[in-house]
């Protein structure tokens, strides 16, 4: 059983890598994957605390988060495909229709 600090540290590192990916990369697909990574970092903490407290709530919510992540990916990838059809790009910098 790993110590709580190790779990929190790992989750923090994974979440930061995901946040950095969303902020730094300009490819919409990689940004979506980084968002998934952040959800997984949260899942690790949920499961670790479920393990510590011995209750089932954390594992149940981690399962629900997994389902929400799947729904998010389905809609996000459909948006990417529609975007590619309309604008012929997946680069976030090219999407400046709302820029004044």
């Amino acid at each position, binding site marked *: 059983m790993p110590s709580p600090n190790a779990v929190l540290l790992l989750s923090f590192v994974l979440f930061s890598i995901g946040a950095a990916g969303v902020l730094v990369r300009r490819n919409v697909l990689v940004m979506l994957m980084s968002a998934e990574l952040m959800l997984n970092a949260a899942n690790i903490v949920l499961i670790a605390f479920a393990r510590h407290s011995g209750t089932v709530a954390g594992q149940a919510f981690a399962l629900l988060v997994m*389902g929400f992540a799947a729904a998010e990916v389905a809609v996000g990838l459909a948006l990417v495909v529609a975007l590619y059809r309309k604008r012929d790009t997946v680069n976030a910098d090219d999407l400046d229709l709302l820029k004044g």
Partner: protein
Amino acid sequence: MDALLASIGKNLFLVFGLLACGGSLAMVGSRSAVHSVLGFLFAMLNVAGCFLSLGAEFLGMAQILVYAGGIVVLFLFVVMLVELSRAKNRDQSVFAGQARAVLPVVLAGIAALAVVVKDAAFGAASPQALVLRPGIAEGLDVARNNAQAVSRGLFADYLLPFEVLSVILLVALVGAVALAKSERV
């Protein structure tokens, strides 16, 4: 050698965690989107290993099924659809020449992992991984039947979020089809 393997087996969470960090760094840092998806797959499999080493066997397996089986394949489809025209001239010969060298390395890795994981996977179940309320834990060995324990907790206490999730998945399914279909048909 035995001491090294034993210490690795005791710290499986850290091993999987470091590998997950490496995979996610490869995901963020790689230039080609296909390599990004492969790094994402590696990171998700190692997160599943973290779940397993935290005593959530059902969730670890669900993670492998949902991510490696569903989401990564979906990402790969879209990457192939969107990025293929740009990456064609560059990525053609990346894997063809290396396949012969990669296979023994992968097999050796699997064998080493089997040796390391053997004790952790087939050893005694850890006590008190999960404690259910007395009312819903009747006639169930909670420490050994993680899937049944999670499902009893889920359907006893969290039925409403579960049903809401099913409605959201249905909406996402219909929405994804409506968004992605071409407008002429």
